[in-house]
């Protein structure tokens, strides 16, 4: 079996970054890069499946510049067998790669690798679209399940029994036929640390760089109807009302306030 895990290197801004008027991105010097939190869980899930099932290969794929190899190598140290990194001059010039563009590129990798299972994070903690996994499933015509927080794989039956986290604490239990794309929710497992042994082994694992042409893609794969128009820090406002008195009096005051604010009628 082959599992493809999509991983993304995300930027995290320092606490006190500055965003000048008109800037479309946070300056590099305020940024630190790390593996997307959701992808940590995707990697762990893939590696655990490989540990439980013989002859399972876990391949990670990322779209990112050379710098991101540091981050990808951490995934290799945690047990991923090999990695693919896609980068291209055409991508270098794009300010903003939208979900569709990513799905097109990843679809080309799926065509090349032919995995049985694709694991993506539910979302990325930088731009937070939360759509790449499902857009990819749609494009490659795989079955899919989003926000998976429990996965039980029946390899022989070609079936993934999944729990999906819905709003309000509701869980949906679904069976998904392989090949499938599952978007993995945080908390599905406990991601391991990259151990010294894993780190040593990662030094000799392969990170294969692909350009768009290697995947039979043209530069226009990045064309997008979306463009980033501005970026700003929202004002944070907070006001606190402290109620005083007996619990009954406090409850009355709260009721009155909620009424005034139109939250409740009465």
């Amino acid at each position, binding site marked *: 079996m082959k599992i493809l895990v999509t991983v993304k290197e995300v930027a995290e801004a320092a606490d006190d970054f500055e965003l000048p008027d008109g800037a479309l991105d946070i300056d590099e010097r305020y940024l630190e890069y790390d593996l997307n939190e959701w992808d940590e869980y995707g990697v762990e899930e893939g590696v655990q499946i490989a540990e439980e099932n013989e002859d399972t290969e876990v391949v990670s794929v990322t779209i990112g510049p050379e710098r991101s190899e*540091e981050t990808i190598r951490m995934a290799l140290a945690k047990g991923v067998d090999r990695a693919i990194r896609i980068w291209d001059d055409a991508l270098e010039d794009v300010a903003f790669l939208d979900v569709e563009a990513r799905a097109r590129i990843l679809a080309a990798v799926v065509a090349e690798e032919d995995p049985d299972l694709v694991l993506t994070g539910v979302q990325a903690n930088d731009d937070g679209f939360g759509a790449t996994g499902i857009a990819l499933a749609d494009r490659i015509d795989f079955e899919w399940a989003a926000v998976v927080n429990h996965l039980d794989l029946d390899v022989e039956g070609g079936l993934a029994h999944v729990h999906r986290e819905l709003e309000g604490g509701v869980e949906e239990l679904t069976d998904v036929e392989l090949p499938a794309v599952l978007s993995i929710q945080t908390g599905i497992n406990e991601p391991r640390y*990259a151990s*010294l042994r894993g*780190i040593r082994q990662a*030094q000799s*694992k392969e990170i294969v760089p692909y350009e768009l042409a290697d995947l039979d893609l043209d530069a226009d794969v990045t064309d997008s109807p979306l463009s980033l128009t501005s970026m700003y820090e929202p004002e944070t406002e907070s006001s606190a009302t402290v109620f005083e008195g007996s619990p009954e009096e406090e409850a009355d005051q709260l009721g009155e306030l909620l009424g005034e604010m139109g939250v409740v009628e009465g």
Partner: protein
Amino acid sequence: MATTEQSSGFGEGPAEEMIRRTAREIAAEYDDEYWREVNHEGTEPDAFWQDCADAGFLGAAVPEEYGGEGMGIGAMTTIVETLEEHGCMGAGMLFVVTPVFGSITLARNGTDAQREQYLEPLVKGDMKFCMALTEPGAGQNTRNLATDAEPTGDGYVVNGAKQWISGVGRADKMLLIARTTPLEAVERPTGGISLFLADPADDGVECRPLDTGVPAPETQYEISFDDYELDASALIGEEGQGLYQMFDTINPERLVGAASAVGAGKCALRRAADYAREREVFDAPIATHQAIQHPLADHYSKLEAAEMLVKKGAWAVDNDGDAGAAANMAKLRASEAGYDACDFAVQVHGGNGLATDYFVVDLWKGARLGRIAPGSSEMMRNYIAERVLDLPRSY
């Protein structure tokens, strides 16, 4: 194809950066309160230790054939420095007491049977160690060791006393340094000393806790040996060669101690910088004053310089070179720079600097210890003066 070899040029190779990442991730799991309890209340740092074992950290310098990673002291100093820098106060002492005193000693000088039996549990975190070298009457002058291990034909009988020995209370085994030939009978005063694998729980070994006033994860003890019988198989390495063999343990000990001092110093400076950015006294954050900024920059750069010496010493150990000079210089520079950094961090915090909540006072006390043990700054200077500068012995 991407390059996958480790960088051979200057700077940190990819493996080292990854080791730091894992160490940072582990450190992030344990907050100040955890370390306050470990260092002040004697809480066992079991969860932390198990994480270190699972990450392979405890076996960093143990050969692969014994379940270790065979990565050497370079990896171990990187680990300890990073853990300390990210708030794991006391990690340095924990690593010295078990992985250095235990695993490195046995890996380098233990018998096959000792390695087979003990290295794996040490690497897995299932076993704790301690080392009894210092004596009330000998201090820095190890040649004057008076604890005797008298050969009896099929073993040894030990009598004597040790002082300031860390971690005896929880140790499963002890590296004991004792005299097997009386001082009067040896050709050279450095001869006649041997290393033993001793059992701190034996009836012939009595230990009493001491109070050093330094927050630390290990308690110190004084020990008396009263006709404590050791089997011949307890000997580590060769009889009479103990002081020479000890260099295989002591140079790593100095380097790990140095790495720990660098890490603790950086931890203190980061906290001082954070505090200075926030604290406003005369209408502006104190960080805007050069009297605050420049010493922070100075101390930071001195720590970085000390770290380079640590790397040099670790490289020498890992490549079977003569590590003595670099290890002593690294330990001297790191413990002095670490102390100065912590001292200034306390200053930047003003009154809060002495409040336990702000943590820097603990770092400062720990750094103060670093100038005395393992090996005092004066003894490092003696070594450099005599061995590097060829000056006459001054004592």
